[in-house]
Structures are given as C-alpha cells and as structure tokens.
C-alpha cells in the first residue's frame, strides 16, 4: 500500500470478506466445531496478506472499480490505476501535496503508533515477569507430563488476576502470586503453549495495526481472539472427563467478572465477561462431532476460501443503464486486457462500436484523461464517431456483423505483438474511389486497415496504433487474401520465377447466441473479451510461378509443377519425394504439391497451389524461414530450390 487509494482498496476487499465470514459464522455458530470457527478466520488472514486486486481480480464486489471511480470523482484524474504492491503500508518518499496524501500520512502514523503501543506494552510485561519469582514449576511439570504437553518456566507475579503464557521464542507461564492456580487453568495455558497460540495473537495484533481505522476488521479481530480461546476450551474438554468438565465450566464462570488486560504476545483463559459467556455456551454444546464432520468442515471452508482468495476477473465494462462517465471509465480502466489477443479484440470492437470505454480498456494510462474527456462529451457513447474519426480519415462505416481480423501477427523484439487490423467497410471509403471488379486476387469490397502494436503496461496489455486507419480494396473473408500484405519468398528456376506468399489472419471467437432455448440465432458479439486468446483464423501460403523467359520459348512448356516443404528455424526438414499429379493438394505437414497444364495462350503468371491451416495449430503464426521446392517443368524435375524471403522477410504490400 503506497497511497490512500491502495489502502482503501485493501481494507474494502478485506471488509467484504469479513462481512461474509461473520454471516457464515452466524449461520453455523451452533453447528460447526470451534476448530472450524477459528480456522475459517484463516481465509480473512489470507485475504489481508494478499495484495488486493492482484492480476486484475477482485473479491466479492468490484472494489478496484469503485475505488477508481471515487478517486476520479474526487481528483478529476483518470490517468492512474490504483495498485496494491504489498499488503503493508509503505511510506511515501515525496512531500504530501493533496488531501489524500495527508490522509495517507495520518493512516501511516496511526499504524506505527498502534504497533509501538503494542510493542511497549509487551516489553513492559516482559520486564514485570522478570521481577516475578519462580513458582509452581512442579505442578506445571506434573500437568504437562500427565497430558503429554510441553512445559515452560513458570513465574509468580504479584497482582496478576489470572494465568497466561507470554512470549513465543522464550515462553513464560505467568501465575498469580499468593494462590495456587487450578490445574485445569494450567492445562488451558499449556495447550496455548503447545499450539503456539501466542503467535496467532501476534498476527491478529499486526493486522489490527494495519487496519486500525476499520471497525469491522477490529470486530473480526476480537471474534478471532475469542474463537481461539473457545478452541483452547474445546481442546481442554477433549482431555477432561465427567465432573472435571463441569469444574472447568465453573472456573470460566468465575473469571467472567475478572479484570483482564490483553497484551499481544500473551494468551490467557480470561478474556472478558461477554466473551466468557459465549465460551460457556460453546462448552454447553461440547460434543464429539460425528465421523466425517472434519471433512464436511474442510469442504465448507474450501467452498468459501477458493472464491474469496482467488477472486474473480472483471469480464466487461459495467454500464448498468447509466452513462456516468466517471464510473464507466473507472470500470473500463480496471477491466483491463490480460492477453495481447484480448487487447487486439477490444481495440477492434471499440472501433466497430465507437464505444470509448472499450478503447479505455486497452489504451495506455497516458491517454485515459483524453478518452474520459471525449466520453463525457457524448451522452450516448455507442453513437459516437469520435473514435473512428480519431483513428483515420475513412468516411465509411465498418460492418459490425462481419467482425475483424488481425493479419500477419508477429512477435516484436520487446515482447509485444504487431499485426494489421482489418475491418470490412459497409460503403465506399471516400468519394473519389470506385468499386473494383473481381480479378481473382482483389475482391469487390473495401477494407479499413491499420497496423497495431500490442505491448505490456504493467499488468495491462495496451494497443498503440502505428499508423492512421486507411482504406484498401479487398475482402477479408477470403482465406489467403493476396490483396493484403504477405511475406514473399522467391527463387529462380530456369525461365521461371517461383514465388511463395505467406499470410496469417487471426481473431477471437466472438460468436454469440441471441436467444436462449431450443431455437437461437448467432451473431457477431461486439462485447470485448479482454482475457481471450486467438482461436479463429488461419495461416496460409500460396505458390505462384511467373514465366520470365523469352516469348518464343513459351510454347516449349506444357506443364509446370512443384512439391514443397516449409523450413522452420528449429530444424531443416528434408523434403520427401512426392509424385507430381495433375491436381494440386497438401498433406497434414504443410507440405504441398501441385501441377498446372499449360495450354493455349497462357498468362505469364501461373497460380500453382496453396494450403491453409487452422489458427488452433501450435505456432501457426510463425513464418517459415524458407521453402524447399522441387520444381518440375514438363513433368521432369528441373531443379531443387530454396525459396528465401525477399526484402529481408518484411511484410510486402501487394
């Protein structure tokens, strides 16, 4: 915790869990054992010791969003994101300037003061015990031996109302001077010693210091302390029989009116009248729980602990039918993209819908203020063209039902990803263009394209456009769209230039079912999926041969064919000898082969064959280093070629 907001996030997250545990304990107070009643506080301890909001997760309620909304509402700033680095307060090394800074300083001072108070009272107690006289050690040892428990030195101290164990490393059993302490009280204290309950006491005290201004957590700390005593009572009763059990109850009753001063680092059977009344009720319910109850207790604890510790990830931006910009933008900022695919998907859907909050999910923090300002200027964010106009100068609309694709996804050296966003357009992009007729490589549609880079910003994946959105002719629905950039490999084979073109296209599966029940329709889901992986698309390669020889030699060729194998970085793969048939084809290892009969007045460029694999294949986005090609002319093997990337393997515009 480094500022007021991170403390608020941590303490609110814990408060939700505390409220749930108090409700569950109220439900099970007479049903589950004292072991469970104390043990379940471990869930709260875990939540308190884990940084709230880790990995973009929240517990029970979307606290990160509400803290962000409050912060933005009070400060007018949208460009920061509250993070809890550690569950303990860390001092600010800068001069406090805002009210929030001063409040955090006050919190810090309170935590330090309370911790100092605890340490001083513990030190005083240890000094008082040093002045005590060794006493009743024989009785303590006898009780320890009888019940098989560890013992520790006992001292008698004047003015003590009751016995207690003090210390963790060098524990001492403090006994009231001038009277013989009952053996059952000694048994109680030795059981505290055996189970190191003083350590739990210290942990509770430490958590009190961290959340000293949260009354709900103080209540839980009190309850946990009492549950620890009730658990110790249970352990005592398990070792006693008949009349001794009733005696133990009477001893507790006699302590109800005694004064008690609880210092951290100590454990005592006496802990106040109200608490003792609760413990006596627990004793009255004492029973050996049925076989299997331990397992039932563990199961109930697991069902609660898993969601409370792991938490949930915000899946979408909260709209709640209201257009409160501060809350919506806070929701967008905290529903951040945890995968690069999720970031590309979110950016694409922001452009498709024009929803500024979607862009905020995947925009760098430095752009959040500008986005919030823009969002605040529109009453209905979904109607705005602001994002689209900001992205480029394409005047047409994107087709929302045809979705998007990211072409030629490539990892960058700094751990990011780059790709070309492609959105089909509804109409002509500008007045000065015309529909382009179908010519087998470029299709009669227009696309809006933009090169994007996804990179990490802390835990978030953000998208940074690398160029303005612009329009190109093409049709993104066709696989192997050669109207869009592809990686080109070439080699010469006699009079022929053999060329391979490699291209990938990826998208997050966004099919939505529109109506539940037996009948439903599907459509493109425009809600971003910030945690998704790419699971749709393909990787494709096409092979072409272009005649480069003299025109008079053209008639000497009757067929051109090949068999080809992709070569990857990790190892050279020897091509198998494949008989070239009249029909093209490919096998499952990406190997492909094809043959074209050349008849009549054939074009110089001959399309040989191509093949695609689904995006689901491992490493589908990895471009081959080269292609190994067996080139056949007129049905005879002419050459064994290696097709290498041209232009240094860069993506080449068509």
């Amino acid at each position: 915790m480094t500022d007021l907001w991170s403390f608020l996030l941590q303490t609110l997250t814990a408060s939700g869990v505390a409220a749930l545990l108090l409700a569950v304990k109220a439900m099970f107070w007479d049903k589950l054992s004292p072991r469970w009643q104390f043990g379940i506080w471990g869930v709260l301890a875990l939540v308190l010791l884990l940084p709230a909001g880790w990995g973009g997760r929240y517990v029970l309620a979307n606290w990160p969003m509400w803290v962000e909304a409050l912060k933005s509402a009070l400060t007018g700033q949208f460009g920061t994101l509250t993070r809890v680095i550690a569950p303990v307060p860390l001092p600010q090394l800068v001069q406090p300037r805002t009210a929030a800074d001063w409040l955090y300083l006050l919190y810090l001072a309170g935590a330090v003061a309370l911790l100092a108070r605890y340490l001083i009272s513990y030190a005083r107690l240890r000094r008082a015990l040093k002045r005590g006289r060794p006493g009743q050690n024989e009785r303590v040892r006898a009780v320890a031996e009888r019940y098989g428990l560890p013992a520790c030195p006992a001292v008698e101290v004047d003015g003590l109302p009751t016995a207690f164990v003090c210390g963790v490393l060098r524990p001492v059993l403090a006994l009231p001077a001038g009277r013989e302490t009952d053996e059952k009280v000694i048994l109680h204290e030795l059981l505290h010693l055996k189970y190191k309950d003083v350590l739990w006491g210290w942990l509770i005290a430490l958590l009190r210091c961290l959340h000293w201004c949260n009354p709900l957590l103080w209540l839980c700390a009190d309850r946990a302390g009492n549950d620890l005593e009730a658990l110790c009572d249970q352990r005592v009763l398990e070792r006693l029989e008949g009349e001794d059990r009733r005696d133990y109850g009477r001893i507790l009753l006699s302590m109800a009116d005694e004064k008690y001063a609880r210092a951290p680092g100590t454990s005592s059977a006496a802990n106040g009248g109200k608490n003792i009344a609760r413990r006596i009720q627990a004793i009255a319910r004492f029973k050996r729980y049925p076989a299997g109850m331990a397992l039932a207790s563990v199961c109930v604890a697991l069902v609660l602990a898993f969601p409370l510790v792991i938490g949930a990830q915000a899946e979408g931006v909260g709209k709640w039918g209201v257009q409160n910009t501060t809350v919506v933008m806070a929701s967008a900022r905290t529903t951040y993209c945890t995968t690069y695919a999720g970031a590309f998907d979110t950016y694409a859907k922001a452009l498709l819908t024009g929803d500024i909050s979607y862009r905020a999910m995947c925009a760098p923090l430095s752009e959040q203020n500008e986005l919030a300002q823009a969002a605040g200027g529109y009453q209905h964010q979904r109607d705005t063209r602001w994002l689209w106009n900001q992205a480029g100068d394409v005047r047409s609309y994107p087709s929302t039902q045809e979705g998007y694709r990211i072409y030629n996804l490539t990892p960058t050296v700094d751990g990011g990803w780059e790709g070309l966003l492609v959105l089909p357009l509804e109409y002509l992009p500008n007045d000065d263009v015309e529909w382009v007729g179908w010519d087998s490589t470029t299709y009669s549609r227009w696309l809006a394209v933009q090169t994007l880079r996804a990179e990490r910003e802390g835990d978030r994946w953000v998208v940074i456009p690398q160029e303005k959105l612009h329009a190109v002719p093409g049709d993104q629905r066709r696989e192997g769209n050669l109207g869009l950039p592809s990686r080109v490999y070439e080699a010469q084979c006699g009079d022929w230039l053999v060329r391979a073109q490699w291209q990938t296209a990826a998208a997050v599966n966004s099919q939505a079912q529109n109506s539940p029940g037996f009948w439903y329709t599907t459509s493109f889901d425009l809600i971003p999926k910030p945690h998704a992986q790419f699971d749709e698309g393909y990787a494709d390669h096409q092979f072409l041969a272009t005649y480069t020889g003299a025109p008079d030699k053209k008639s000497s060729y009757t067929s051109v064919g090949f068999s080809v194998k992709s070569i990857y970085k990790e190892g050279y793969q020897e091509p198998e000898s494949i008989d070239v048939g009249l029909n093209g084809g490919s096998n499952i290892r990406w190997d492909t082969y094809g043959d074209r009969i050349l008849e009549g007045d054939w074009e110089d460029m001959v399309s040989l064959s191509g093949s695609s694999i689904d995006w689901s294949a491992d490493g589908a986005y990895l471009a081959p280093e080269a292609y190994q090609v067996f080139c056949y002319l007129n049905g005879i093997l002419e050459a064994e070629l290696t097709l290498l990337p041209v232009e240094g393997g860069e993506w080449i515009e068509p």
Partner: protein
Amino acid sequence: MSPERETLYTGLSHAAWGYFFLNFDVNFGTVSVIPRFVGFLLLLSAIGKLSGERRDLALLRPLGWLLAGWSGLDWLLSWGGGGVSGHILFLDLLVSAARLYFEFQLLTDLAAIAETYQPEGSDLDRRIRRHRTEDMVLVTLLSLLVFLPQAEWRDWLVLALAVLVCVVSLMIMWNLFQLRRCFREEAA
C-alpha cells in the same frame, strides 16, 4: 403399520424424492420442470416427520427454509428468463455453504435412523454415510472447478463430476427407499 411407523415411512419417501428434485433437472426453455425448491420442501417435510426419531434434525429447519426460499425465488424469476444465482457472489457463497452442510447433516441423521432400524447384518447406515461423503466431496470439487481457468479438460471434468453426482444421488435415493422398506416389512 402403526401411525409412528407410517410417519417414518412417509418421511423417508419424502427425503428420497427430495434428493431426486435436488439433483436432477429438466428444463423447458429456461424453466425447470423438476424445480429444486420442491426438493427442499420435500426435505423439510421429511425433517418434520423424522425429527421425533432424531431431534438434531429439527436444527436443520432454518437452513432448509433458507434454501427453499432461495431456490423458489430463482425458479420464479426463471419464468422471465432471469434468476437469483450468479448475480451476488456474497449470497451465492452463503447458500452454497448452507446447502453443503444441510445435505451432509441430513444424511448423517438419516444414517443414524438406519443404524437403529435396519435389519441385523445390514450395512445400510454405512452405505448412506459413504454416499453422503462421496456426494459432499464431488459437490465441493464441482464448486472449485468453476474458479479454474477455462479449458476443454475442465469442461470434461465438470461433465464427469456432474455424472458422478447424479449416480451418487441415485444411490442415495435407492438406499433411502431400502430404509423405507424396513418399516413396511417390520409392520408386515
């Protein structure tokens, strides 16, 4: 059959059918035709009829009403395509914990009744306890799996566990009907 035995017989019938309503589901559109709240009402009826035999059962009544109310509200809202589950995690967790304990304790008490009334040499009580434990572990695992990352293997595991829960529920029903038969046979 004496009135007391008749009551126990009916109570066990209600308990067995209650388990059927609790663990099996057939939907017509979004509405269940085997609503869960009916299962809880049947179990509450069983508790009323069997608590004379096992006093601890009466302690389960508040939890039973809570669960019946919650699932009844869920069923009512399902007519409009909605529901109460899955919206407020706080309440979902409270109900999950209550249901886990409720079913565990109910079967523990039914096993105790079996221990008293089963014919000599029968291990009906042990079988009920064993299925109770299996049911509890399976339901717990199912609850935990939801919080693991989405994956195909997780979906298959959920399906396998759900099938096992159905099988165990059928076994529990079968054993409760067996226990019910003890009263009819003794009366005969």
